[in-house]
């Protein structure tokens, strides 16, 4: 076990993947000489060479399209998209080619490529550097969409994603890059598709992922002071979602709160609320509650704290789910 930041844990995952399989190649803007904007790929080009850790020009459609060509020929390319908002020029390649090639060729062609995307806000950047575009990709069949919240998961899930024969959108919570944790590089198990019960509870199920897992845990601790027992679930996989784990929890607690940074409308929270209402209708004591970013473009740095779900907003959501007096409105739900 080694204590690593989440960013370093991703880097060590990439390093292991490059060592274990010579078909793994990294492509991206500034990932080689510079080691990436967030230094995730620091030292990899030095150790594995310019042919395996490839600095590209600014060309997201080109990077992802080239990765498709490499995947066709048996490589396992790992593309880094520098910031969430920079993925849109490559969107066409992802949804029209990457997601569909396996299906449209009747399974003859596999697309074992991984697209790493630092995402989310909270670092004082602005739109294009703070967005949470995961729902666009979760809506697209054929992609696996995952996100991590701890250094151990970052390391293990990234290696699992690279080894997967399916294309994986790997969303990295950029404001948690500097979170430290113990990492066992030899850990076995395949965490990517399985939601994690972070802390057990009996009153409310709080579903989240990525950057807000830490905030949800804070909410669980704060609520415990009030005698409320929250079960926090880290989804890990956003497509497909491990609904079995969430259902089991909601059948126990009868109450569901979902929180994510992305805007509310058409977001993951809507999908989870709809599916859980369907699956657990007779267990639910209250309507599912969503605590999300607002339906506005990502705001300026100075205003982002108003946009991002924080401890207070999540606790208010928990109160609503429990039918308690809501501290924002003073009204009972």
């Amino acid at each position, binding site marked *: 076990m080694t204590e690593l930041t989440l960013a370093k844990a991703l880097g060590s995952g990439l390093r292991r993947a490059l060592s274990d399989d010579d078909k793994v190649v990294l492509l991206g803007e500034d990932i080689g000489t510079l080691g990436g904007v967030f230094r995730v790929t620091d030292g990899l080009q030095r150790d594995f060479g310019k042919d395996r850790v490839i600095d590209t020009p600014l*060309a997201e459609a*080109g990077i992802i*399209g*080239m990765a*498709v060509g490499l995947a*066709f020929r048996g490589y396992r390319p790992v593309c880094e998209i520098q910031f969430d908002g920079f993925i849109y020029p490559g969107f066409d390649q992802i949804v029209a080619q990457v997601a569909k090639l396996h299906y449209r060729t*009747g399974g003859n062609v596999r697309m074992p490529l991984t697209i790493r995307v630092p995402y989310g806000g909270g670092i004082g950047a602005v739109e294009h550097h703070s967005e949470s575009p995961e729902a666009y990709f979760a809506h697209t069949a054929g992609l696996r969409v995952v996100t991590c919240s701890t250094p151990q998961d970052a390391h293990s899930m990234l290696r699992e994603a690279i080894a997967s024969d399916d294309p994986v959108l790997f969303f990295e919570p950029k404001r948690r890059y500097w979170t430290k944790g113990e990492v066992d590089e030899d850990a076995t198990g395949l965490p990517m598709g399985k939601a994690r019960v972070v802390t057990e509870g009996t009153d409310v199920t709080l579903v989240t992922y990525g950057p807000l897992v830490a905030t949800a845990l804070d909410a669980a601790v704060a609520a415990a002071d009030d005698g409320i027992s929250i079960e926090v679930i880290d989804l890990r996989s956003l497509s497909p979602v491990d609904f079995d784990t969430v259902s089991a929890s909601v059948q126990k607690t009868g109450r569901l709160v979902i929180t994510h940074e992305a805007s509310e409308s058409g977001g993951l929270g809507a999908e989870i609320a709809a599916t859980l209402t369907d699956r657990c209708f007779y267990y639910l004591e209250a309507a599912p509650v969503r605590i999300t970013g607002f339906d506005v473009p990502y705001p300026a740095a100075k205003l982002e704290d108003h946009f991002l779900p924080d401890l207070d907003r999540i606790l208010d959501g928990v109160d609503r789910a429990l039918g308690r007096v809501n501290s924002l409105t003073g009204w009972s739900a």
Partner: protein
Amino acid sequence: MNTQIVADRELAAASLATMWKIRRFEEAVEDLYGRGLMHGTMHLSIGQEAVPTGACLALNKDDYITSTHRGHGHCIAKGADMERMMAELLAKETGYCRGRGGSMHIADTETGNLGANGIVAGGIPIATGAALSAKMRGTKQVAVSFHGDGAMGEGAWHEGVVLAAMWQLPVVFLCENNLYGMSMSSEKAFNLDQLSDRAKGYGIPGVTVDGNDVQAVYDATKEAVDRARAGGGPTFIEAKTYRWRGHSKSDKNLYRTRDEIDEWRGKDPIPHFEALALAAGGLTQADIDAVRDNVRTELRSAVQRANAAPDATADDLLSAVYAR
């Protein structure tokens, strides 16, 4: 000096057979569609057969191509089997994609065909990636990215060419300029005398050739492929040709005149090639008749066998999303 195709009996017969296969295959597709026996839509390249025929003659079996929505000719010229192609279009389990892909998505990695593509310019960066894989593995393989004139307005075209030029990758960007991107004439769309004038801006060689002349397309592709194999990087080729049929089944041809279409039908690449082969002595009239008749027989049998194959089922419609 390259081989003179029309004077070489074997090459001339093979080239003529390829053009006839493309022509007959697409005529059969048009007929099956018209009679309601084939579903979806398709884009026919009738009139453009000389481009894939000449280009693929310069390629080895393990070289790569990416193709377009108008891709039957590229598939056939690169060596795809007509029966499996027809089965794909008829949505049969024996098709190249088990009937899941259809006309616009035939991929045959056995013959280096990395896929037709419904997204215009979608194949440009994919071919560039395949070329990068060849360079990384130290093979002498080359990738040819067939595309139309319409692709040259797309961002993916630009990005793919920039990357290929930067790393001097073994890829040939072959623009089949059939003069129209659906209804938009390439003359209006691009403020260029020749589309190959654009190559200079990317720092790569560019050439424009007669796309209805197998020899001209072959010569240009051969030069580009030889340069790519020798480490000389990418080349852009514009092959000027003409699409006789509409863009797709919905096209009412409102953007061009009957006279224009007739003028280009007069430049039909097949009789043009036959006349040259006769004159050069590569083929006799009997050879020419035999090629045409053999292709007709082969195509008929391909259609019959494809049609008799089991239909694609919906049984794994949900389970086939991810690799197993």
